[in-house]
């Protein structure tokens, strides 16, 4: 480990399963974190990602996903080339990860060389609630284990 790793939980805490990333990092924070690893959460994306990711060598993102092609609670890992299709130019406040990394590099910022994301398939991200649905809640501990393996402890 180089000592500059970020675990970034993303989501909305009042939209049911959309809070998954934040629940994971809150639970992770209660446990022991290896040296050189920062754990934080963000409820907004877009250019905020640029501000959060710079200055780190590796970023591990945790989020919820609505692909419609998986069962709620299923976990998927994305890295490297998986982000390739991610130039989002229509939504000012939802820039994709690829855009943010490329922009940071073009502006001469210290951007991570490795970005990995763990996403859980959500059952519901449209109902106002502070609780995760049962299948998604059941995935929290597994994702924590996966994240721990990524950050070396």
């Amino acid at each position, binding site marked *: 480990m180089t000592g500059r790793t970020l675990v970034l939980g993303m989501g*909305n*805490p*009042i*939209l049911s399963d*959309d809070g998954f990333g934040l629940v994971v990092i809150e639970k992770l924070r209660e446990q022991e974190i290896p040296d050189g690893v920062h754990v934080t959460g963000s*409820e*907004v*994306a*877009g*250019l*905020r990602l*640029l*501000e959060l990711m710079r200055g780190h060598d590796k970023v591990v993102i945790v*989020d*919820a*996903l*609505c*692909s*419609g092609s998986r069962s709620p609670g299923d976990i998927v890992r*994305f890295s490297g080339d*998986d*982000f390739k*299709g*991610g*130039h*989002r*130019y*229509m*939504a*000012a*406040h*939802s*820039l*994709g*990860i*690829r*855009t943010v990394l*490329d*922009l940071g590099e*073009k*502006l*001469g910022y210290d951007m991570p060389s490795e970005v990995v*994301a763990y*996403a859980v398939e959500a059952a519901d*991200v*449209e*109902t*106002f*609630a502070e609780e995760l649905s049962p299948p998604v809640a059941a995935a929290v501990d597994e994702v924590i284990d996966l994240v721990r393996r990524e950050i070396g402890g």
Partner: protein
Amino acid sequence: MKKVSIDPITRLEGHGKIEIFVDDNGEVANVYFQIPELRGFERFCVGRPVEELARITPRICGVCPEAHHMAAAKAIDACYGAEPTRTGKMLREILYNAFSAGDHTTHFFVLAAPDFVVGPMADPAERNILGVVAKVGPELGGEVIKMRAWSHELIEIIGGRSVHPVSTVPGGVSKPLNDEEAARVREIADYQVEFAQVAIKVFNDVVLANSAYVDLIMSDMYAHKTYYMGMVDENNHINVYDGDIRVVDPDGKEFVKFAPKDYLDHITERVEPYSYLVYPYLTGVGWKGFVDGKDSGVYRAAPLARVNAADGMATPLAQAEYERMFETLGGKPVHATLATHWARLVELLYMAERTQQLANDPDVTSPDIHSQPTGITGEGVGVVEAPRGTLYHHYKTDDKGIVTACNLIVGTTNNNAAISMSLKKAAQGLIKPGGEITEGLLNEVEMAFRAYDPCFGCATHTLFGEMPLEVAVRDRNSGEVLNTVKRFV
């Protein structure tokens, strides 16, 4: 025309949906759009202490949390009958203008600039913030990031946190500004004024100097002669934090001006049978359908509407730019929707100057930061101008201050009818008999959406990919789908 019911269970996969109905001749009869519905908000709020809404409502929208926070704060003031002190109001207004300036900056450079700086016909791979930076240089790109970062810093100094401020209390704010913080706030404000002028210069050099772009802005494709709504001060100058709501007619004449608490007397929320979206319209004019004109109660909000509804800007540099804009575009009101991008820059300059003005007021470091609530009125309305339109928060409470009801009209909602009309106009211009739709249609449709910068951000949550959008062309009689184009992973 035949009523089509949209099955609420099948249509929502986290993407926007546009449905275009064509008649027997293949002409576009009507266009409807849907976005995923966020369900159960009122139920979620009822039963909570009303002060919690200042922390809950900002989380509906990851795009302008500060706008919801401030509208909530004002509605909560009213629920407690607590009028903010002069300093409390000033600190809130500084925070709010700094947020608005940062948001307008983000919007212009990340959303609008790609169309104008790189070009609407350019390769989509270049028509984004990266293409903008490639064209204007990384130095300017760095300034955009710095402008945002310093806006966030200012929000954190006054608000306690940079995205979801926590410092408002009924009757003011919880934390005064010390001399060091005030000096830093003034430094940030000075930079914002400088930056706003740079942004306008970019607009001049790259957009206005190019007649093809000017033609695009003035094109009839996105022009609608509607009423315009915006918040103004006692001089009828734009104020995004506080004031009365003024509406002018399509000729620019004042139609009505009302206090926030009276909004229900002037705005009716219309529900259409095929959609859960509401379409607000002016009660005093009445609903005539999705049409332009003085007899139609359709109105618009957001930057273009605000500059049309006001008589001018309260600060000198912004006033000069305001005059220049209307002189260039042929007088007031301007109906061309794409001119909203210029209006946004005029506002950006005002917001920066206003922050500077307030930050230099001697009372800004006063310890008199909030008044003391003495009771519960049981009802409150709080209105601010969010970047995307007039934002209304309306709460009712019991005698203990526990929420019993809440209603929100968010910025984009004001424009729901106008967005439908713009989509229809774009579709009619492009769909010819035969029902064929091309990539060109999607781009034009997206431009109609983008001009309103709708706050759909919270609803479209995917890890990667483009803005999810599905366009379906249907036979207006049978409802049968003739053609679809999807753009989402």
